[in-house]
């Protein structure tokens, strides 16, 4: 058992998937960049009107899911409160709207607010782990979302509507197409950053913390600090995603802070597979599209969504990307060990 985890940990640290024993390798950063460029170029051609808008939404959730996976997949922390940091980013943009700061600066501030909030929370909550920590994140998220109704400046149930998208380098982001390019650039850069983090010693230390905290600390890794940093990084990236989301939607509304959103982003990671780099991204896309398609084609989307999710949880513990090694294994090795 331990050896398997170790192996997976090493694979994760070096960025290899179990299946890919490829003789040639594209540098990971280039691979990410290539995917983003291809998607970015194809996007506006493939999608028009509201589907481009939906695709942009999906793109932002890709970033949000990747940020959450820093906790979930890399460090083994379950947080049911990530919506709070996502929302913090969005509300920051909403509150900054009257000042008309450039969109990029808004993102920076949103990131900072998300990171600071996450750091404060994880410093306070650091002595708790496991399910109790998950519970604490849920409570934290719910408290923050309750505050939205109590602080008049945050707009109550209507949130902060009418956020302008602004302009970047003189180009207005008003059209959905320019916003798509903007979102592609931001999420692409951050996706590369996340990819590099994952392959770094920091990423490896998080994996060690996840697999065996005792051994990790014996190896000289400061487990508590690693957890705090992971939480802060996740909060920062969630803050950026939230800020982008507010710019896209033109509104920061309280529903994005609800615990169901925190649950949904975990589901995204799970659908795709939280132990691979691409898993959360693919999960986010599938989730966003399925959610949209189901809500208008059936009277009880929850039923089908729930059933689909159950099947994935039960049959594909490593998510949809878990299918890849499963299939390749079945192809190369027919013999089966009796259980």
């Amino acid at each position: 058992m331990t050896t398997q985890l170790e192996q997976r940990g090493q694979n994760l640290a070096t960025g290899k998937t179990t299946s890919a024993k490829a003789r040639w390798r594209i540098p990971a950063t280039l691979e990410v960049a290539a995917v983003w460029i291809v998607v970015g170029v194809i996007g506006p051609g493939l999608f028009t009107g509201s589907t481009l808008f939906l695709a942009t939404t999906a793109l932002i959730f890709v970033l949000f899911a990747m940020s959450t996976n820093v906790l979930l997949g890399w460090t083994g922390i379950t947080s049911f409160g990530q919506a709070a940091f996502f929302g913090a980013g969005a509300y920051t943009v909403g509150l900054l709207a009257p000042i008309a700061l450039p969109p990029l600066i808004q993102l920076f501030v949103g990131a900072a607010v998300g990171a600071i909030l996450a750091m404060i929370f994880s410093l306070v909550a650091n002595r708790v782990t496991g399910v109790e920590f998950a519970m604490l994140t849920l409570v934290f998220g719910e408290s923050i979302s309750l505050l939205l109704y109590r602080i008049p400046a945050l707009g109550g149930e209507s949130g902060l509507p009418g956020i302008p998208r602004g302009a970047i380098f003189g180009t207005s982001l008003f059209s959905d197409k320019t916003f798509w390019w903007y979102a592609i650039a931001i999420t692409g850069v951050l996706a590369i950053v996340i990819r590099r983090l994952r392959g770094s010693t920091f990423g490896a230390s998080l994996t060690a913390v996840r697999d065996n905290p005792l051994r990790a600390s014996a190896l000289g890794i400061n487990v508590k600090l690693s957890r705090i940093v992971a939480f802060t990084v996740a909060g920062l990236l969630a803050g950026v995603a939230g800020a982008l989301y507010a710019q896209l939607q033109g509104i920061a509304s309280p529903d994005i802070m609800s615990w169901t959103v925190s649950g949904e982003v975990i589901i995204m990671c799970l659908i795709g597979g939280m132990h691979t780099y691409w898993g959360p991204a693919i999960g986010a896309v599938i989730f966003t599209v399925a959610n949209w398609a189901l809500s208008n084609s059936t009277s009880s989307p929850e039923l089908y969504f729930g059933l689909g999710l159950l099947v994935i949880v039960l049959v594909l513990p490593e998510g949809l990307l878990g299918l890849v090694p499963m299939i390749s294994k079945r192809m190369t090795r027919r013999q089966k060990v009796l259980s």
Partner: protein
Amino acid sequence: MFGQIFAALVSGIATGMPLFIVASGLTLIYGVMRVLNFAHGAFFMIGAFLFYNVLGGVTGSISLLIVGLLIAALSVGAIGAVSEVAVFRRLYARDHTTTLLASYALLLTLDGLVQQIWGVSPRSQTQLPAFAGSFQILGVRVATYDVVLIGVGAVLAIGLTLLLQRTSFGQTTRAVAHDQTMARALGLHARGVQLAVFALGAALAGLAGGLISPLLSIDPSLAPTFVVQSFAIVIVGGLGSMGGALIAALLIGLLDSFAVTFFPGFAGFSLYIAVTLVLLLRPQGIFGAAFASREA
């Protein structure tokens, strides 16, 4: 002043006891299987709908009420048993995130199913005339049905404690809860115990749904309303401790009622404040791990 404090005390207990009744099944399931079950809220809601269906909205007599409760509890218990076999049994060995998500998926599924079966119109269950109305005690008005719920909650707390502490089923359950492998190596049917406990926990949710339905609007939005509170009670009480759950529920009820009476601004936060303080000061909960103390 005294009158207000006394009134807050009474209403706090009246608030907390239904919470305990809802959370008791969740506590039981968590204690044995370490599964925090989101679908518990759906079990509760289905209990309310079934109770309504059996009685047609009118509670004619006390025997009908009991029949309705039994049917709600047994049916939801059966749903719980099916969920255990179809879903949770396969996940005991997996990490808690996966199990939480599976239970969340089950919540969605059952919620959708309820909308398919019962539609979206809210329903209302009429109170049994004998339990309707209120009376005064030391100048404080007390609802008759609150007294009924307090009684039921007390009986449940005592009954479940006796079941776990005094019966052979309880011994087996505690053994399985602590060390499933060793229990099986002794020849105990761990799977049977897990199935029974899950069914019992679900049945308790169904019972709670029936019991509390006369006080609520019965509609599909019911499922999530008690989930967060029940989770909080399980956590605050100390995971798996029945006595802890009772005390946590009463504590949360009292905090809420005192906040409503004396600090209305904090009313919505009392639950969260309680959970945060308990977790930070005593992460194992008030009665941490009393159910089956762990050596590690």
